[in-house]
């Protein structure tokens, strides 16, 4: 068993209202020094040896991310 992390983020050109809201909240909290925030999803999968990179990419592409608006990265 291994743990794999998949991060899914909105493509750069897609509006991210959540990230913008967090940025606004940081400003109200008086925290400066953060110039941008983007919010995405983070998945933790427990996989056995049978799941190879290709299969992981397929899982990410079809289930975890919506390729129309999101990109993903996989970390073993």
């Amino acid at each position, binding site marked *: 068993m291994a743990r794999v992390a998949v991060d899914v983020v*909105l493509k750069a*050109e*897609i*509006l*991210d*209202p959540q990230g913008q*809201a967090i940025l606004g909240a940081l400003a109200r909290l008086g925290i400066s020094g953060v110039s941008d925030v983007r919010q995405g999803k983070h998945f933790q999968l427990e996989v056995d040896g049978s799941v190879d990179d290709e299969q992981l990419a397929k899982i990410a592409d079809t289930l975890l991310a*919506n390729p*129309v*608006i999101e990109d993903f990265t996989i970390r073993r």
Partner: protein
Amino acid sequence: MTAVAVDTVARAAATPEQPQPYAELGLAEIEYRRIAEILGRRPTSAELAIYSVMWSEHCSYKSSKIHLRQFGEKAPQTDTLLVGMGENAGVVDAGDGWAVTFKIESHNHPSYVEPYQGAATGVGGIVRDILTMGARPVAVMDSLRFGPLGLPDTDRVLPGVVAGVGGYGNCLGLPNIGGETAFHESYLGNPLVNALCVGVMRTDGIKLARADGPGNKVVLFGARTGGDGIGGASVLASASFDQEHQKKRPSVQVGDPFAEKVLIECCLEIFAADLVVGIQDLGAAGISCATTELAAAGTGGMDVELDLVPLRDPTLVPEEILMSESQERMMAVVAPDRLDDFLNVCAKWDVLATVIGTVTDSGRLRMTWHGEQIVDLPPRTAAHEGPVYDRPIERPYDQDVFVEHDGRTLPRPRTGDELRATLLRLTSSPNLASKSWVTDQYDRYVQGNTVLAAPEDAGMIRLDESTVRGVALSVDGNGRYTNLDPYVGAQLALAEAYRNVAAAGARPVAVTNCLNFGSPEDPGVMWQFAEAVRGLADGCQILRTPVTGGNVSFYNQTGNLPILPTPVVGVLGVIDDVTRRTAQGFRTDGALVYLLGETEDEFGGSEWAYTVHGFIGGRPPTVDLARERLLADVLINCSRDGLVDSAHDLSEGGLAQALVECCLRGDAGARIVLPEGADPFVALFSESTARAVVTVPRTEEVRFTDMCTARRMPFARIGVVDLLDGRLEVQGLFSISLRELRRASASTLPRRFG
């Protein structure tokens, strides 16, 4: 990126032969030449961007315009219409100084690509249209069509669309008070997502989209402009700029409902303080549309400094800014002495507002980019004087065959057991089954004025806490009927929505419509379209309910296969006292069940033929609009005089389905005796129009029957409510427990979607 000079007016005049990608932008050569003729030179690429979006089918209605004129020409005279067609939405007088505005719009294609965001931004767009009229948006409805239940693509599209409609509307705080959810193969690659919004204001608060008064300021406010929905513009950008600029722009728009909620509150405060001269929402065609339309409708000129537009993506070029469909933006025309107050309200709501231009009397829309002139055109030519086509029309050669194949020979259920099984089969069919899996995702309570909502025949809202006046709305359409006869099909949609509104006790007064069709370049589709428009216009004339606005959606097809022609009609009714509304559920023990109207053997396009036999053919049910008016008068009277304690119109699935819905809604049993000599199958399942089921308290029976007799409304007593019996019994034929009915009706969608 290497710096490349923008395409200025001077440069355009100096380089008449420079090739431009008009075809990629969807303009015909003749259209391109006309633009050059109007301008007396080739357009700059920014001007080309403006004309290409404004002259698109979507914005210019170039294929539909000559047909849609009938809505105006045949419009019945009424004194309730305050603003007719042509504005962002029509406005209706609701009495006592109240005005109501409503409109329906499609967002079909985006909802197929990205169901959640497509549907969400569809709701967002129509809400801004209503807001633009000066009204507080008070409710939404949604009319949805999908491919067959059970196919993987429907599994992808339907939950996303429903979550999107709910996600956006719920967050805006708009109650969803009704709609439709229907299924047919032709919508598999092309779902229909039509969203309706209704708004309320005082009659003296109506706002129009006009840029009047030279010297007044043009203010863009709301979200920043990003690269949303500008597939077309990147063609331009790549043609006029170096390769490196060619990056992929998102074709999907993402909605920010919170931004829109704040924008609504901000606008309402601005309206209340009377701070704008004119206002326009930014929808399709974004800034191109807002600037040309505002200027064209007002004093006639406008100067804009395009580089002042606040951007989300600083690399956007002028063409992209002009075409961007970024959501949650508005444009206002503000007198200089009101500007500070205007900006202060925006600041209070944390809404970004930027003066980007000035109204002029030059008759020209002029735009600069970093000081250089990039646009100089007569705004009317972009906004109102686009091309108009009289597309070829041809009745499909197989239409007759299709109609003659009338399904008379389809085996019909005869015995009590067969009829019982048929009823359960229909009740659990995707089209007739309970839609609560859908509607339970929609907030119907928010704003505290919802009097009726799904699954009632019509949604009804009180206009405001301070009054008992209200409006009722229903949206309906039937692609199967329309396919068999587009003229009649459009009238059937109208008749059903009209009947639904009357069943709730409201007087129908106005119509909006969304015409969903295949490609206008297909003469067969164009015939369907022309017939449907003619039918709807004629129908509205007879019912005295003018069309106040609407939307045309063409190119709904997968490959060469168009969707069923689907005109969706929304009818708005007014009611003086919402406490007198009539609901659908049986609720009084011993109340007498009456059927109003007459039943013929009519199964063309019926739910029975489609669900049981997979068959669509024959003639749709006959429409008799005079009879519909009579029925509506009777229903409204019954509500006003307290003659009935429930009413439900009959439509798809006929009497049987209506009885099921009345029983389940009221959690009440009923004993039904079909009229003497009637064929039970026809009596139960025929889809004859102009009918309704009502329940009459015994104390009112004489008054009720006298009233029907006096008005020559056919009626038949068909049974009695047995509140605690827990069964729907059709005497001599079958009986079904409410539990079994509920299971049949309620489990269809959850079984598929969880």
